[in-house]
């Protein structure tokens, strides 16, 4: 199980608001697939997946704010 954390977006950025999940729980996610759109201080950042597997859990819902480094979802990697 991989914990996906909100990206570092710069020294001065402490948090971001998740505006849209681009994958749903149960979806298969490949590396570099767009996962979620984050808005921080007038910038729209598209977070890509660093992992491959099934999106098993979304911990921060659309419209909610997360701190940098906070776990926002979990991806279950395929065994083997």
């Amino acid at each position: 199980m991989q914990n996906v954390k909100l990206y570092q977006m710069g020294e001065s950025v402490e948090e971001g608001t998740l505006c849209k999940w681009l994958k749903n729980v149960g979806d298969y996610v490949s590396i570099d697939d767009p996962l979620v759109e984050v808005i921080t201080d007038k910038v729209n950042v598209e977070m890509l997946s660093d992992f491959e597997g099934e999106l098993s859990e979304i911990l921060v819902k659309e419209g909610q704010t997360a701190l940098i480094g906070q776990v926002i979802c979990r991806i279950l990697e395929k065994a083997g």
Partner: protein
Amino acid sequence: MIQATWKSLSQTEYDEALEIQNAQATRLLQAESDEQTIFTVEHPPTITIGKDGTPEHIIASETRLKEIGMKIYSVDRGGDVTYHGPGQLVVYPVLHLGPWGNDVRKYVRMLEETVIRTLRVAGLHSERMDGFPGVWIGDQKICAIGVRARRKKNREFVTSHGLALNIAPDLSHFSTIIPCGLSNKGVTSIAQELKESSALASVTFSEWESHLQAMFADVFELRF
């Protein structure tokens, strides 16, 4: 100094300019290029709806929109509804942010700073407004800002979209929308402000582009 390219696309349709900037951003993301590029363009009358926007913020009648020849697009940037049109200098910097600390927030501050310094050339005092993107003169917006960032494999951010500075657009076209969903804020332009202060009435579009380019060079430490 950082080497960069300034590309004036002149009059170009919104979707065509979008394709050009996206193609360059993709080249950076796939590490096929590391060229820092700033595109400038002047769009025909266009309304774009960002990810936070709604078509309800377009308030003009079909007849009025037709009369203006307005084109309407939904786009992949943050923000609400924005108008673009003749007399507005639109700037799409496609930059990889490593040289500036890879900080998306700092990047937006630098864009704002570039515009504020450009306006100062004509003696215009403008500022940021907390919580409201863009650059403002009083409570009237003179420059809209909306940025999109994607991350390369090496964790460096690549930007697209950017800013729209009102030089001398037809301000009545803005009343077709509720700009950025803000019903209680107005818009202004350099021409409008200079008419009021009568300081520098006849500065052309291309001169303002040169001023802006010089300020980009200053603020971002670029060499074109």
